């Protein structure tokens, strides 16, 4: 994992000191709320319905046990004993007092964490594949490049007042777990025909009011030019992006109105001018950052574990958890463990202080001190020995973190919605809870197989509903909560934007609707088809019919 040197530590400490001064100026009345708002937002501090909300960055989703323990302590000391993991590898605290936030940020800085640029019209927390460094699929670990981007984008003087927020995601695996095609910039690290590794650069994806899948503007970018190329993209966007209408200000609008080709030409022209101007990191600095992500020393183990086989045969629940929540590791005898933050009937992404501390302990003992946060609002223990899997399962179960439902119908992404968010039209969480309860039987869930339900409380799409196999969007109809269903979206390598199924449904109808859709799928599926595959083969009609026939 990356560790701060004195420069990194100083930057973060000075940022907290700066914010402490800004808070002081606000409390004394020297700054009005209008003047203070952009400053607090750049430090991740929002005002929600009930209180302030602080969004803390987990750069590219990587956490140490020590950091996770601190997140738990912070939840207890400054909040109400819990935190909420989001779809952008951040954690949000829902109740901190403004006067406490500088101290809170100091506590985070102690463990090399911060809330810098987690909001505002700047380059946000860089996200990545939660299995980075652990999966056999990847070309190489994408996180060193994320860290390079993190440093380059931190307090970037030219790009702190962009037309709109800017999100970058990086992956190095053919299986896209970072949703790179629906980001402002998505980077895919791969090996070209000459055997050289570099990035495919995708620009202009996004969700929100006008969802788009991004366009590839460069097939192959040598790694050493990463930062200068990003700088060229950002400069074109900063100068050309629309600023007259907040809903048209994202880069996706610029790319799609000009056409990807014309946009690419502008970027290439800009890049030609700045490519050799000393923006890119020298080889030594790239190597320095790289070294922090050197793979841990894995024990030489047999890939078979007798302990595991025995427990698998004797404990059916464990066997199911193994099937659904673990993933192949690149080292023999190891596995990747997913921790579901979606207990049946629970609040997606929420985790208590005690649970955070338990996860920290488990990771320290069994996962080489590492934890990951995923964009699906779950956690990952990246390096667990197969021999230890049962012990890990038991320890997770003891704190209610062993729900076996990764990728299943109850592994729902939901934004905070009207229970917390001041922009919401409708609640999201109760819908997630009721769907989860309706499908509580884990055997049934496993039979249904992979099914991604994503729920947003308004068109801002924080819950990624556009890319849900089934998406649910909260709308407001004369003061009443209604829900619009979209079908056939995907945020993975086969990215697509879901289609609206028809008129909005009441909150009672929407849970039945999901059950009807699943019914059509189970009746009509062929072989090993997932819900999405069946939908793509049959088209929307049979699903729409089922939804609206009786309703």
């Amino acid at each position: 994992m990356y560790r701060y040197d004195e420069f990194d530590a100083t930057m973060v400490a000075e940022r907290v000191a700066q914010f402490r001064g800004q808070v002081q100026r606000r409390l004394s009345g020297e700054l009005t709320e209008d003047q203070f708002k952009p400053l607090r937002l750049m430090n991740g501090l929002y005002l929600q319905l009930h209180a302030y909300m602080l969004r803390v960055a987990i750069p590219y989703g990587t956490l140490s046990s020590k950091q996770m323990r601190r997140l738990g302590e912070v939840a207890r000391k400054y909040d109400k004993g819990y935190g909420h993991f989001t779809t952008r590898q951040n954690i949000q605290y829902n109740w901190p007092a403004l006067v406490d936030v500088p101290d809170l940020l100091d506590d985070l800085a102690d463990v090399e964490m911060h809330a810098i640029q987690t909001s505002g019209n700047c380059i946000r927390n860089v996200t990545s594949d939660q299995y980075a460094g652990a999966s056999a699929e990847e070309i190489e670990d994408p996180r060193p490049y994320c860290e390079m981007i993190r440093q380059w984008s931190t307090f970037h003087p030219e790009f702190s007042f962009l037309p709109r927020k800017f999100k970058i995601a990086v992956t190095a695996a053919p299986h896209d777990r970072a949703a790179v095609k629906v980001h402002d910039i998505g980077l895919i690290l791969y090996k070209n025909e000459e055997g050289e590794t570099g990035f495919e650069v995708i620009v202009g994806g996004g969700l929100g009011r006008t969802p788009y899948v991004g366009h590839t503007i460069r097939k192959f970018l040598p790694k050493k030019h990463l930062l200068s190329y990003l700088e060229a993209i950002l400069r074109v966007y900063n100068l050309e992006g629309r600023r007259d209408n907040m809903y048209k200000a994202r880069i996706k609008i610029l790319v799609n109105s000009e056409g990807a080709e014309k946009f690419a030409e502008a970027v290439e022209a800009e890049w030609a001018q700045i490519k050799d101007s000393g923006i890119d990191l020298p080889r030594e600095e790239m190597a320095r950052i790289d070294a922090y992500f050197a793979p841990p020393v894995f024990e030489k183990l047999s890939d078979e574990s007798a302990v595991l086989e025995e427990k698998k045969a004797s404990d059916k629940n464990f066997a199911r958890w193994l099937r659904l929540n673990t993933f192949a590791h690149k080292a023999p005898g190891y596995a990747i463990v997913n921790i579901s933050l979606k207990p049946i009937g629970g609040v997606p992404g929420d985790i208590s202080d005690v649970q955070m501390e338990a996860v920290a302990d488990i990771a320290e003992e069994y996962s080489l001190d590492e934890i990951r946060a995923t964009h699906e609002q779950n956690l990952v223990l990246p390096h667990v020995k197969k021999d230890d899997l049962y012990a890990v399962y038991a320890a997770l179960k003891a704190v209610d973190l062993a729900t076996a439902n990764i990728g299943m119908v109850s592994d729902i992404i939901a934004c905070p919605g009207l229970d917390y968010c001041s922009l919401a039209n409708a609640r999201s969480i109760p819908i997630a809870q009721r769907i989860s309860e309706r499908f509580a039987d884990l055997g049934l869930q496993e039979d249904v197989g992979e099914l991604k339900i994503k729920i947003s409380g308004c068109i801002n799409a924080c819950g990624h509903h556009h890319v849900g196999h089934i998406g649910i969007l909260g709308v407001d109809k004369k003061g009443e909560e209604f829900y619009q269903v979209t079908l056939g979206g995907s945020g993975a390598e086969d990215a697509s934007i879901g289609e609206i199924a028809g008129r909005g449904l009441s909150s009672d109808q929407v849970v039945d609707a999901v059950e009807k859709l699943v019914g059509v799928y189970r009746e009509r599926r062929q072989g090993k088809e997932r819900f999405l595959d069946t939908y793509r083969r049959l088209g929307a009609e049979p699903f729409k019919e089922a939804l609206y026939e009786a309703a």
Partner: protein
Amino acid sequence: MKAVTGNRLDDGVVVYLGDDDRWTSDLSAAARFEDGDAKDVLAAAQKRVKEIADAYLIEVDDSGAPAGRETLRETIRKSGPTVRLDLGYQAEA
């Protein structure tokens, strides 16, 4: 009828303007204004920048409960998240 609400500056909690011109956490104790007068009251409240982060008007009925289009939103603000009955003002009741 209208009431003035906002989030308290130092800790962010929901408050309402009371009859004594002080902020209260209890909506039923909030001062109620005729629509015509409310704008001036709000303008005065918004000047109290050291006390409040973001003041605005909400609609209330004769008993002081949230009314109109934003009923659900303001009910959730006055009580707490519907998915965590142990949090917010509802927890103290």
